[in-house]
């Protein structure tokens, strides 16, 4: 293994909850707080501790030169805090990191743009902010402009740019940085599909050049494409470091104890859904009519979503999103895909409903799948979304062609009709 360029030893970051909530303190707050804590000091020292949270704790890892490491985890797990420490934006509360080489970060596009300055001026300014030398900026200038596709507007103030143009320009500058270590945080969450593809392509190219990259994203497909190894961060700790496919698998499956069934009880459902819609449960139903976490690929099974409406909703459509445990989408289907069904249910009156979908036999391959659910009035509003609602496994022991024991590629393994003809003599 190559020499590590990043070596983190037991780093932790503690935040004060009070100041996080209020944003910033006024002088009066401080005086009041100081007076209060002076009075209280003897009585409850312990209370002070509950005002702090550890966003990151005991994090140790190494990254070898040229490695592209993914970082995944739920929101608030501490991924961004970790990158901020590596980028020296914020100091760790404990522990240390040894970094060899120049660190560049691609944290959020558009930071450091000044709306009054032209595209040309902003490229120079932003480059300098990101740590590029003047000569370097000059050399790459044309390349950046070309990548951003803003040649015509290069001398127009950036405030007249469309959001898309600003985004492209910002990414272009950052992507042409040449640090030895590049930190990338969720930059792909913005922009249209074409732009995202372009960014991914550029990042792939950067990785090819042998630079070390740390890549934080919720986009599992992107993580899977760009990285070979990934760490999973949860609750401020590294819970796993493994080859990417395994890590993604772990992350997507983690926290889905009730595999095969997902129940949204009271508060949990109400918190993430918009009234009058209330999700109740999502289930995988086997051929025997019972909830199951494992189905045979050779038999048909059902996916059902139970929900309640407090008032009638017009144009409601319930969708199921199936993806593999690596995050690749398999299919999307809606309960009102049939125009007749849609017309009949133009408006769904208040009440409880079950939308049930039958998955034919011999469709899916063997493996683990993740089911997401969404309820919305198309183009009007979304009532409920849970991208990783539950997971289930498929058993392919009686799938077509199972007399050959080798695993088949791809998420589907359909039984297809074959004809075998003898060519005419």
């Amino acid at each position: 293994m190559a020499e590590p360029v990043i070596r983190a030893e037991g780093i932790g970051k503690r935040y004060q909850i009070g100041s996080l909530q209020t944003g910033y303190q006024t002088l009066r707050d401080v005086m009041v707080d100081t007076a209060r804590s002076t009075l209280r000091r003897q009585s409850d020292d312990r209370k002070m501790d509950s005002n702090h949270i550890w966003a990151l704790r005991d994090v140790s890892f190494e990254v070898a030169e040229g490695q592209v490491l993914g970082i995944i985890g739920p929101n608030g797990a501490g991924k961004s805090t970790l990158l901020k420490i590596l980028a020296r934006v914020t100091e760790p509360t404990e522990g240390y990191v040894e970094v060899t080489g120049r660190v560049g970060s691609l944290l959020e596009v558009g930071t450091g743009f000044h709306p009054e300055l032209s595209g040309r001026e902003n490229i120079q300014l932003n480059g300098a902010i990101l740590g590029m030398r003047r000569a370097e900026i000059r050399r790459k200038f044309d390349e950046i402009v070309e990548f951003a596709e803003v040649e015509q507007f290069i001398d127009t103030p950036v405030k007249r740019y469309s959001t898309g143009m600003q985004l492209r320009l910002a990414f272009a500058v950052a992507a042409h940085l040449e640090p030895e270590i590049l930190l990338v945080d969720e930059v792909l969450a913005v922009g249209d599909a074409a732009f995202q593809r372009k960014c991914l392509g550029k990042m792939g190219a950067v990785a090819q050049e042998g630079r070390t990259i740390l890549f934080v994203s919720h986009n599992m497909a992107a993580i899977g494409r760009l990285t070979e190894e990934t760490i999973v961060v949860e609750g401020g700790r590294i819970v796993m470091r493994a080859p990417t496919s395994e890590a993604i698998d772990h992350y997507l499956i983690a926290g889905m104890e009730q595999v095969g069934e997902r129940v949204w009880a009271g508060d949990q459902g109400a918190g993430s859904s918009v009234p009058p819609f209330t999700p109740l449960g999502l289930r995988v139903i086997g051929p025997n009519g019972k909830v199951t976490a494992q189905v045979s690929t050779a038999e048909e099974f059902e996916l059902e979503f139970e929900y309640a409406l407090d008032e009638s909703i017009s144009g409601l459509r319930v969708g199921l999103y199936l993806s593999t445990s690596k995050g690749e989408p398999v299919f999307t289907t809606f309960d009102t895909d049939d125009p007749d069904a849609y017309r009949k249910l133009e408006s769904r009156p208040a009440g409880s409903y079950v939308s049930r979908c039958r998955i034919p036999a011999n469709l899916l391959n063997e493996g683990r799948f993740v089911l997401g659910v969404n309820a919305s009035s198309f183009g009007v509003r979304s009532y409920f979304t849970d991208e990783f609602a539950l997971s289930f496994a498929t058993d392919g022991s009686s799938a077509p062609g199972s007399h050959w024991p080798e695993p088949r590629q791809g998420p589907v393994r359909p039984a297809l009709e074959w004809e075998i003809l003898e060519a005419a003599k």
Partner: protein
Amino acid sequence: MSVESLPISKRIIQPSRGWLDLNLRELWEYRELVYFLIWRDVKVRYKQTLFGAGWAILKPVMGMVVFTVIFDRLAGLSTEDIPGPIFYFAGLLPWILFQDGVNKSSASLVASRSLLTKVYFPRLSMPLASVSAGLVDFGLSFLVLLGLMLYFAATLGVQAWAAPLFVLWGLAASLGVGLWLSALNVLYRDVGYVTPFLLQAWFFATPVVYSASMIPEGPWRILYSLNPMVGVVQGFRWAMLGIGEAPSLLAAVSLAMTIVLLISGMLFFRRMERSFADVI
């Protein structure tokens, strides 16, 4: 891959301790950024204004006209036997340099909030650039001062060589105050409200519209000189117009105070810097 002239450096990131690490070397490494920030401040300063850079000149000129009418003609305050307009103008130039510097730098960190929470650079470069950018305005209005002096037939004495030193001194005072206020502003937005009053009081504690010779001799003089700008404004006027006494013990008090302000400002700033991204 070409990362020119950059040696592979090993860096340790860890909780910082202590007060006495100014790390000016790093600021030097980032000098190009400081240059770009100054350039940005200068470029942006008068964007989308009708008069553009004309404001750099209009501001002191308008002040001078008002002061001449009120303090010279109506109140009849002493201008040490030189024409009121150049007396006031020569006092206003270093004062505006100081005032703009304090204003801009105290807001500099908060204004770049998004940058501060996402990219690393020596934070000192922000207030430093804000203060330095005022030099361009100063340069423009300095030309006007020369024109006025020509008009009023005032001559430059040999002591004029010292003028740049007083300008530098003014910058240092401005930066000292700016460092304190900008760092405090990150924590307490009260600073934004306090600064105008602070500057207003400071203005009257500085010999811009009157001559420092009005202050009675003795302990009051010493106390008065604790204001760094007393030394700067008096000194600049002495250098340009040859009035008042040459910098003396009192100027030394002002200078010492400036140095105290600047160094304490830097130390305080460095101390607070660690938590900027977390609390801003």
